[in-house]
């Protein structure tokens, strides 16, 4: 099978288009690269949705923990403790056990122009159930990072804001939030990467794969099993992950530049070979 044929058969296999059966014999490198790449769409989807929603929720949690009243602070602390304190696959396990016990009903959501029928049975499918778990998980980890950052904001910054007469939302938006982000950013970029990598666990030990539509690691282990050679599919998926991680790093680096643009640059120490040898 040529690469073009592999592409048309398997490029969108992970979301249900293309050849129904996976390649079984005469597996080519193209098959592996394309099918694993197809599966990576799931990983990107899980990560993007969980991180976007998680960022907002984590910020709210962090403020509740630092400045909130007790009835917000205690539940927020507990939530962070439980989700940071247990391995992700145990969270997947309990979430799945819970979701399959839910009564299977449709929930009508009026959208004005049409009515959307959401079904609780969607929660047992990875696209929704696993996303919910990943969202809660990253919210907890990010909230911890943001809390630490909020507590390390230099007092002078706050006092300066007060001296300028800033208060309330203005102080938050112009001083507290940007400073928190700046301090939290290196760790938060780690968290975003970890979350992206955690998406590999969804089908590995979390949710079942329906119709062989699943993420990159599912196809990589399928190929490792079908060809009995782990040294081809796993490095392929590793390269995919490195690529997407570099994208994340690049994006977070750009944001970091922006967050730190007012910070004074350290004096550049020029390296001279001679000075090192004589010292």
């Amino acid at each position, binding site marked *: 099978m040529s690469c073009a044929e592999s592409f048309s058969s398997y490029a969108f296999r992970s979301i249900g288009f293309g050849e129904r059966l996976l390649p079984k014999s005469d597996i080519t490198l193209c098959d592996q690269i394309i099918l694993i790449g197809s599966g990576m769409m799931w990983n990107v989807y899980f990560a993007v949705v969980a991180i976007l929603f998680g960022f907002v929720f984590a910020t709210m949690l962090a403020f509740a923990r630092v400045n909130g009243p007790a009835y917000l602070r205690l539940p927020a602390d507990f939530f962070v403790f439980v989700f940071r304190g247990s391995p992700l696959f145990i969270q997947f396990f309990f979430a799945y056990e819970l979701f399959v016990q839910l009564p299977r009903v449709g929930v009508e959501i009026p959208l004005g122009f049409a009515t959307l029928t959401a079904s609780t049975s969607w929660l047992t499918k990875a696209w929704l159930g696993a996303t919910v778990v990943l969202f809660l998980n990253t919210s907890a980890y990010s909230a911890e990072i943001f809390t630490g950052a909020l507590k390390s904001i230099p007092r002078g910054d706050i006092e300066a804001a007060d001296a300028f007469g800033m208060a309330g939302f203005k102080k938050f938006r112009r001083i507290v939030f940007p400073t928190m982000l700046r301090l939290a950013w290196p760790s938060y970029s780690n968290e975003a990467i970890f979350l992206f990598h955690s998406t590999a666990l969804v089908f590995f030990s979390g949710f079942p794969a*329906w119709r062989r539509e699943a993420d990159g690691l599912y196809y990589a*282990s399928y190929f490792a099993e079908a060809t009995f050679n782990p040294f081809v599919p796993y490095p392929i998926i590793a390269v995919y992950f490195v690529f997407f991680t570099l994208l994340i790093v690049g994006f977070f680096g750009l944001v970091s530049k922006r967050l730190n643009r007012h910070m004074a640059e350290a004096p550049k120490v020029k390296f001279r070979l001679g000075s090192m040898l004589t010292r």
Partner: protein
Amino acid sequence: MKKLVLAAALSALAAGTAVADPIRMGTEGAYPPYNFINDAGEVDGFERELGDEICKRAELECTWVTNDWDSIIPNLVSGNYDTIIAGMSVTPERDEVIDFSNEYYPPSPSAFVGAAGMDVDLSGAIIAAQTNTIQAGHVSEMGATLVEFATPDETVAAVRNGEADAVLADKDYLAPIVAESNGMLEFIGEDVAIGGGIGIGLRESDTELKATLNKAIDSMKADGTLNTMLAKWFEGDAPQW
């Protein structure tokens, strides 16, 4: 077996020091009654008894190690143990990568199990199977909706909680589960024959070990010990040689 291949080279260097090295027997330890970890924490089951008897007859010293199913073949070929004795069916694909001894268990059928009293049409049903098994491949080829779970336990659980209409697995694995389900589960449809019999997996370069094991297996078939063992571990409906 690299040890035996090398034995010739070594004996040229240091004649007479060729003490038989222990054979490392690799198994999964999670597939009763073939192999499982018993309550004493040791490998137990049909294959434990069989393997020990083979080692006795072949005058080999054997130690048992367990390995995750997914990486059981890569770890064999890279030499972390010397045999796979883990209920592994002989398939053409596997045979290309590793060698198999003579079969010690005849081809056995797989079967569908569903909740009792449900009239399931298998061709349009949702069928659970364990990831990366021949059963998963079979379901996807027969056109039913395949749901894959990481462990066999979860496939049965999916039928109990209604996520799947049926599960396809080895009949020997399902039989005690159905028998002990208090009538909740039952076999449905016809049994299907997928996969060959079960043999001991070996590296292709270990031709001498293969010959040794084959001799032991054949002698157990000839004097009926293998049949006795099968009857002991698989109760009434055991296949016989």
